[in-house]
């Protein structure tokens, strides 16, 4: 024995006035719990011999108790049960008569073991209620009589907090806890890093994830606009943004401000933004946390404002894995260039919600870029382009029904709807399960230009 238990108990119980249970003692002295119980008993006896009532004890008694009136009745209930109509009917015809242990005093039939915690002053009374005692031991020691016995649960709580660092499978053997030889435990190492990394890694692999393209774009936009128009950035933020697993990242803010200076410049140089994009790519510290940026729900963002913020920002690139950005940029550029011409052609039949005179192509492109979707946890949420029919009256009085692409927010948990969607919709980086279908050429001649991207 490394440490004298009397000393330990004297310190804790008498000096510090704490409650010491056999478990705390066994953990403190690293002994078997049964030994600790004996120690407690010994100390209690010795102390009380020296000075009576200096130390009080609680005991734990196990055994079989005499059938008590409060426990399951020994026949009173069952007799009533037999006679009154209240009892449910004899079971379904076809069943064999079953032995109802609930009727006859089941206490006799079912062996019942009692585990009773009792204070020392009630010990004699309690032992008198036992028919057969299997074991009796000291549970805890405390300096004075316990007013509230619930205080004992505090001991266990202390054990847990103090010895939390111990590995139970290793340390508990010495305490005498029953060991489970087949216990299965996962390694206590880190769980796979939060889903942030995998999508970043995946896209970094080089495949052109149309999905992630738009997301960082929107993200950048909202970051870049921070300096320009606070409103717009506020509006932009609600855009759902996320890669395979959208996670909020507070880190998005700091990098945003950091790059504001270059961003502003970028916002005016649409053509040159490509070059600029590369630089922030490589320069910015890749922080995986940024990739799945703020997953803010798509508010009822008006398309006008969206266009405002969007058209200038274009493809601002935020920090992230460099390759990821580059890929996305290239895609976005390609997409935007392709759409320039057709969009110019479509005069009014253009998107009806876009009322501003701004360059439609940028708006278009921006709109597409803004088409986002959050990762699914079974739900797809976000804004998307939807084909809607609009019927207008021509100059000659003809009603013309045209197919137009309109933005709407959606939230669904079904497999991606089969509706016509704009091509490079930034879907989730997940394997195209969520990928939106490309514009259906058959649906409207306008959209046939965009085709599959």
């Amino acid at each position, binding site marked *: 024995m490394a440490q004298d238990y009397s000393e330990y108990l004297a310190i804790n119980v008498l000096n510090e006035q704490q409650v010491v249970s056999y*478990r705390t003692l066994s953990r403190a002295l690293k002994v078997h719990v049964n030994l600790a119980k*004996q120690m407690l008993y010994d100390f209690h006896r010795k102390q009380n011999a020296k000075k009576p009532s200096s130390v009080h004890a609680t005991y734990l008694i196990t055994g079989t108790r005499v059938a008590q009136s409060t426990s399951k009745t020994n026949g009173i209930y069952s007799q009533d049960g037999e006679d009154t109509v209240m009892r449910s009917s004899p079971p379904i015809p076809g*069943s064999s008569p079953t032995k109802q242990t609930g009727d006859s005093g089941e206490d006799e039939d079912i062996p019942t073991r*009692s585990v009773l915690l009792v204070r020392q002053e009630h010990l004699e009374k309690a032992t008198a*209620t036992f028919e057969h005692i299997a*074991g009796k031991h000291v549970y805890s020691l405390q300096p004075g009589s316990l007013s509230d016995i619930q205080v004992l649960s505090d001991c266990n709580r202390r054990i847990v907090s103090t010895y939390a660092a111990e590995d139970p499978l290793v340390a508990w053997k010495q305490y*005498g806890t029953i060991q489970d030889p087949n216990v299965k435990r996962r390694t206590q190492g880190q769980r796979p890093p939060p889903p942030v990394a995998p999508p970043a890694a995946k896209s970094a692999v080089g495949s052109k994830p149309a999905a992630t393209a738009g997301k960082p774009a929107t993200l950048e936009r909202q970051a870049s606009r921070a300096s320009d128009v606070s409103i717009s950035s506020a509006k932009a933020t609600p855009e759902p943004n996320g890669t395979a697993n959208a996670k909020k990242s507070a880190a998005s803010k700091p990098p945003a401000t950091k790059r504001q200076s270059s961003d502003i410049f970028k916002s005016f140089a649409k053509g040159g933004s490509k070059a600029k994009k590369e630089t922030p790519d490589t320069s910015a510290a890749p922080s995986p946390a940024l990739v799945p940026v703020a997953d803010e729900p798509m508010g009822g963002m008006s398309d006008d404002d969206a266009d405002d913020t969007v058209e200038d920002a274009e493809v601002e690139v935020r920090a992230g894995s460099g390759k990821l950005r580059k890929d996305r940029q290239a895609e976005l550029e390609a997409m935007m260039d392709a759409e320039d011409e057709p969009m110019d052609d479509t005069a009014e039949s253009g998107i009806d919600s876009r009322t501003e005179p701004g360059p439609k192509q940028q708006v278009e492109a921006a709109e597409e870029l803004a088409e986002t979707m959050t990762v699914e946890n079974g739900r797809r949420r976000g804004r998307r382009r939807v084909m809607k029919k609009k019927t207008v009256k021509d100059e000659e009085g003809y009603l013309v029904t045209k197919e137009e692409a309109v933005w709407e927010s959606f939230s669904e948990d079904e497999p991606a709807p089969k509706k016509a969607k704009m091509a490079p919709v930034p879907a989730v980086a997940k394997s195209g399960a969520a990928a939106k279908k490309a514009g259906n050429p058959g649906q409207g001649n306008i959209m046939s230009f965009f085709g599959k991207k």
Partner: protein
Amino acid sequence: MAITNGSGDDALLSKPSYALPSPLAPPHPTANHNSSSSSQPFPSLTRQSASYSPLTDFTLPKGEARHYQQQYADMYFARLAQLKPSVEALAAEAWSEFEIASETARKVDRALDVRQGELCWVIGTIYMEMPLKPNILDDIGKEHWIAAPPPRVKFLTPGGVGGDQTMLEDESGRLRLVGGALESMLLVTGAIVAVLGTENADGDFEVLDLRVPDLPRQPVRWEREDGRAAASKQKVEKREEGGKVAIVSGLGISGDAGDTLTLDLLLEYLLGESAGSEDQSSISTISRLIVAGNSLAHASPVPPRDEVGTNGQKKAPHAKKYGYDSSAYNAAPTDRLDLFLSSLLPSLPVTLLPGADDPTSISLPQQPIHQAMFPHSRTYQSPPKSSPAEPGSFDSGTNPYAFDLHGWRFLGTGGQPVDDIYKYVAGEERLEMMEAMLRWRLVAPTAPDTLWCYPFPDGDAFVLRECPHVFFVGNQPKFESTVVEGPLGQQCRVVAVPSFRDTGEVVILDFETLEPELVRIEIFEE
């Protein structure tokens, strides 16, 4: 009452059995306690193990695969289709020569084909028409005006069968059942039965006799393991004899003081730390703990009607009434439960079933409580995507749950089906209701009528295909147990597990005899 002290009685009320190192005496050889070697007077015990393999009968598909578009009526039809063959066989056998006044009973295929005055038998689903049953239309209509009435204990119209009617329904139509024979029968909505009788002048079907599907086929002990071994041509390893399983339910951890000490005592008892050596060695034969529901109090995501917005306790008036007020969330109960489990798991494998008050889905089958609720115990669970055949030491199961433990097939619920049946019938005997559930071959007969459930698209998953060896139901008012016997010699041990919070009782079931015994943990009060 003479106290007969066992031999090990005072062993722990004695001086420590090792020699104290004293400055004068030479060091004692047993004073070295660096390891729990054989010099220790107390042996370290190892727990007995039992093979465990869960079944996924009640696991619902995740995410998008779970559909809610189908109608519940389809579930009734599916149930009827699944059980009709067995009822038919039984009924045909029983009534083939049934004669009254030289008229033999004839099987009728559809309920509407019953002709007046003709002795026949027909199979269908029972539907109990009870005005006092919760009615969704009434709920919606009254919701804005009246405070919720206290939930009814029973749905029966008091004062006799005034408003209550029993109907038999199948795909074609309904028959109203009357007759004195019905009084003595246990019937609830959703049970599939065959009734023999005739149509009387009022158009009601007068019942003379009734048959139920009765217990399904029972697998032999170790059937699944043997089957698997045979299929893969492996030798079956030697199986241990003996062993026990502990079943507890209704821990009801609520975070308030006052319930923690009995829980601690239970923990210490199961760990084998408390109690004497004799008890400890018998506790080491307990190979698993099953927690059958209601481990937390007030943790259900949908609080009962009158508690909506109060989170189980009275809230400040300024707190939000509708919606979720996250400031009212109390993490203490889940922490406590997690602590309890993580202290127990290194020593004892645990199976956790959710109950009515637990933080998981409300409708049956309740899905397993998610791993995220147990940050510490999580390491003892298998990772989320692993196959269900290899659970870790800690298995979070569905409600109801079926699994094979040491060769025996166990089926358990957290108590909601039985509690619901209780409301339909006039009797008080829960064991009879549990027996009836087995004979109807339905784990949740009253779903979806008064018990919320998932609209199964491919048939009712609550239909019992194989009879379990042990059927336990948690959160019952008191402990009861019996053995139900079937026509083919099946024997099923039915156990009603009481709520630990109220009674402090733990049921221990022996594997070889399937006999239960009780352990009651109490604190002595004057």
